[in-house]
């Protein structure tokens, strides 16, 4: 299973991508619960839809596009909380460790 987190927006508008490939049984066992904990069906699938759902004016904020296997999610940074935050932070940390 490949997991990727793409962060766009921000005042600098620099796109950053962090990826992790869980291709061993041990890695899949480690990542599966983190991925399964996220409510994939309750959030927008595209950054455009996520941006349209943001209430009020919040210029210069980040957006996250998250993929895990066939699943897709897009969230403004202020919605990256709870299990989403665990998934994003874990992916970023693992990606930076491997890089």
């Amino acid at each position, binding site marked *: 299973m490949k997991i990727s987190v793409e962060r766009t927006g921000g005042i600098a*508008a620099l796109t950053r991508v962090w990826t992790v490939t869980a291709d061993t049984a041990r890695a899949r066992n480690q990542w599966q619960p983190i991925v399964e904990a996220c409510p994939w069906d309750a959030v927008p699938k595209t950054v455009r839809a996520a941006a349209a759902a943001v209430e009020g004016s919040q*210029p210069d*904020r980040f957006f996250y596009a998250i993929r895990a296997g066939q699943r897709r999610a897009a969230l403004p940074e202020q919605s990256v909380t709870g299990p989403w935050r665990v998934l994003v932070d874990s992916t970023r940390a693992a990606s930076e460790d491997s890089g």
Partner: protein
Amino acid sequence: MRRLARQDAPEFSVAARAAKEALSHVRSFQSARTAPGPVVPPGLRDVQPGPPVRSIYDAGGSETLPGKLVRKEGDPESGDVAADEAYVGLGHTHRLFADIFGRNSIDGAGLPLDATVHFGKLYDNAFWDGRQMVFGDGDGQVFERFTRSLSVIGHELTHGVTQFSAGLAYRNQAGALNESMSDVFGALVEQYVKKQPVSKASWLIGEGLFTPQVQGSALRSMKAPGTAYDDDVLGKDPQPDSMDSYVRTSADNGGVHINSGIPNRAFYLTAESLGGNAWEAPGRIWYETLTGGSLPATATFRVFARATAAAAVELFGSGSTEHDAVRKAWETVKVKV
């Protein structure tokens, strides 16, 4: 009426004053009709700007706003570099809008200026959340702390000014104009503090934010969009410098930080053509366009360009040097006026 309002001759002074007042009322009415944010009563446009009322908070690495108050208006330096930079930067930004444009804080009605520093862990961003400014410390690899750049502090506060005036939508061309307003007045804050004329200014946004490891001088260049950085890891500055290279994308709210290069350059070209200080005639034209009340929230580049030309005519007269400079600037970036 606009022609009448510009009359300087004594015999026209009463009529000119009456016309100016009438136009002011029209603008206030238009503002009330189109502005999506809180509406400033017409009388407040004439209120003398008050001093800033600043409060700087420390989030201590959390993402909870506003955090702990570390310096309020009139307090001595806190000893925290980011908090003190934010305090000073807010003051400089308030002073540009008050001294030069007669604006009483962000909302035109004396809104207190709140900012939070040390937001999040290794957070490489700064933003306006609709009520206050927020600054991260940077990740130390690509970015330093975001309060280092006065143009960035001015940029964030100007998002507030836009929210309380034209209310430009944060998507596609209107969003790129929203971003451009923040870059224009962010650059002007820096130039006004340094007393830099057009020719001496860097026209860079976010100079000093990148760590020495990054091949780049700033986030954006208003003078030469697309040239601010070219780095192995970050890639090349993607900003276009005219409509010929306009970027169509769904990312970044439709490229709001990318296509802002086009109106940014139009402002620079206007200022370059006029010389002197950019916060004077060019700044007045852009400020009047943003706050005059007739700019729609969904303005395109063309609508905005026409509005700047109309503001130049209103302020300086048809066929004036300023009017010509504005028209030629938009022509150069391939936006039809």
